[in-house]
């Protein structure tokens, strides 16, 4: 039987990450990259970190992972304050960058062996950790090929596998599914859910809102270096949902556009539809769809989509505290 990568308990009271009043300004930059950012990440949860390009996500990940030193504020990792001298805290976490941060002219196994050695693992430990990471990322058949010859999906899996070598309690995933096909993306998402089940805390950044919505227990949004939102995912989607009816058809149907026009319907590829309907008129709309012969893969009412919330948030600015209460 294989051992779990992490033994953290989901019920732990000490947050995995606690950041307080973080600030960071790059040399010669006109504005700070981060300003007064505070949040907590519960252990063994997936924490979505969202924000437009240049918002400060990478800087925040750099500070949390220890590759940058905070100029203001304080970071606590698993209850221990992160400072320059607490290098051992780095052993608790791992970063999986957006880039393919490995050596393309080396084979998959050589890459795993090298990064395993950098963690200071003994030969036996390294072999065991490598095998576990290989198993999770299903790389068995590809280890002896040069990583440069891998497909995009395999490269993502190798990138993730390297991040698992130290059995991290906290894993920072920076856009782990960018540029890969749907099958590989699903594989990565399932692997992330599997890691969470094993007790790993995951900080997840992505521009794919449906991924974040599906995976994350809580979410934070950064814009222009400031934290503009942090909330539990379920609460956020329900509160912002209002009168929104969303459904995904089994097959795309363009003829619905005319039928639902009075309700201000919008759609994605004529398959996923959003309609604003007061609750009193819900029976009327459902009856209309039934008569039309629509068959549904998914249907929900009063729950918003993260993408809509996110875009609204960036367009109108940070919500007032009372609005979120």
């Amino acid at each position: 039987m294989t051992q779990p990568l992490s033994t953290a308990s989901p019920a732990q009271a000490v947050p995995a990450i606690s950041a307080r009043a973080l600030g960071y300004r790059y040399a010669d930059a006109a504005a700070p990259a981060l300003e007064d950012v505070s949040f907590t990440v519960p252990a063994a949860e997936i924490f979505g970190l969202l924000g437009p390009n240049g918002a400060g996500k990478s800087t925040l990940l750099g500070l949390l992972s220890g590759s940058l030193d905070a100029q203001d504020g304080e970071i606590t990792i698993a209850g221990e304050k992160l400072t320059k001298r607490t290098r051992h805290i780095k052993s608790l976490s791992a970063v999986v960058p957006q880039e393919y941060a490995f050596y393309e002219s080396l084979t998959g196994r050589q890459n795993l062996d090298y990064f395993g050695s950098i963690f200071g693992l003994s030969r036996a430990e390294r072999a065991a950790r490598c095998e576990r990471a290989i198993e999770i990322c299903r790389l068995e058949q590809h280890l002896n090929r040069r990583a440069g010859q891998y497909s995009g999906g395999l490269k993502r899996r190798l990138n993730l596998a390297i991040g698992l070598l130290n059995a991290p309690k906290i894993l920072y995933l920076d856009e782990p599914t960018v540029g890969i096909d749907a099958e590989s993306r699903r594989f990565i998402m399932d692997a992330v859910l599997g890691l969470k089940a094993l007790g790993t805390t995951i900080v997840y950044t992505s521009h794919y809102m449906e991924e974040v919505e599906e995976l994350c227990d809580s979410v934070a949004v950064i814009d222009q270096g400031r934290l503009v939102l942090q909330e539990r995912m379920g609460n956020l989607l329900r509160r912002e949902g209002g009168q929104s009816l969303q459904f995904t058809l089994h097959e795309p149907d363009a003829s619905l556009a005319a039928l639902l026009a009075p309700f201000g319907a919008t759609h994605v590829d004529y398959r996923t539809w959003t309609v604003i309907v007061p609750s009193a008129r819900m029976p009327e709309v459902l009856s209309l769809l039934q008569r039309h012969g629509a068959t549904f893969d998914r249907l929900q009412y009063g729950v918003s989509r993260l993408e809509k919330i996110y875009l609204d948030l960036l367009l109108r600015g940070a919500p007032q505290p009372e609005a979120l209460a």
Partner: protein
Amino acid sequence: MSLRAWRASVHKEFLLLLHDWHALLLLFVMPLAFLVIMSLAMQDEFAQRAGQKLTVAVIDHDDTPASRAFVAAIATSETVAVRNASGDGSVKQQMHDAGDAFGIEIKKGYERALPQAAAPVSERIVLFVAPDTTRQTELIFAGTLREILARERLTAILGPLAVLSRGGAGGFDAANSQPAIEYTYEAKNGAQAPSAVQQNVPAWLVFGTFFVVIPLSNTLIRERQQGTLKRLRTMPVGQGTLLLGKLAPYFFVNIVQVVLMMAAGVWLVPALGGEALQLHGSMLALAIVCATLSVAALGYALLISAITRTTEQASLLGGAGNLILAAIGGIMVPKFVMPEAMQQMTNASPMAWGLQGFLDVLLRGGGPGEVLPEAAALLTFGVATLAIAWALLKRAVG
């Protein structure tokens, strides 16, 4: 420092280098090719510079006291060696077979024609010039012959007063008239000028060591571009460990380069018809020059890696920089053939310091004390460039 992490870094760098055939060709084959080609191509040029005499084949058909005196006068020259050729067969053929620079045929009747104005003696002397003898050498030698002939003619006319023209106390003495020659470059310790192989082995060896800039900068820039360095920064390993793990394999590569180039000078060049490299001097001194040269080359390579953003920029800047350092450092054109001002300029190139260090050992048999100035300069350059590069890289990676 984590020894395990350092060893892993060294191993990884070796693997990356072994997978990079272009880099291996650049590091080993290119300088070796230069070394062999230049050693063979320039050996005649260096031989003359080193004091080797031009040979002159002489056939004396007259065989009289006057003709023998003429040949003896030629033999007194410091620049030529007379070879008495056989009277049978053509002079041209004998010159070709023996590789002589010149041939002289003294026809019968030379002595009789010498004092006579009506029968010019010059018609009794024929000078043959080998096809590979330069025009400049030909003009100088022809002028020397004219001078000797004029003197011999004067002797024949004046008879008893010959003492005035053919030397002796108070007479015309060619050796005494020779101005003192001082080689500004080779005068130290009274050593001889380098031969082609003595110049070219250390020169192209030094050139080759600096080409670690290409693979080292390429791997480092790729690590930066692909986020590998940032990933390593998040791992519990010191930057010093990573840097030493990166540099150590290239230090080893430099040492292998030195050994291979020396071996090529000792065995390969003579096998191809050139002169063999003689290993004089102290091995410790040689090791000191090798080590400090490598530190300088690594510092230069790391600095190029730190100030460039793409592999193209690094290859261009590193390669062109090497060519400039080689051009002014006496690698491509030997320092001793440069004008005085250019010889002073060579001191600006670390390649010149390395070359000078090798020449101190290989040519002049120097020990550790003799190479100390060059070794100190190389070490200072290496440490300074490494420190600057380290600071720039820390800033770039975060």
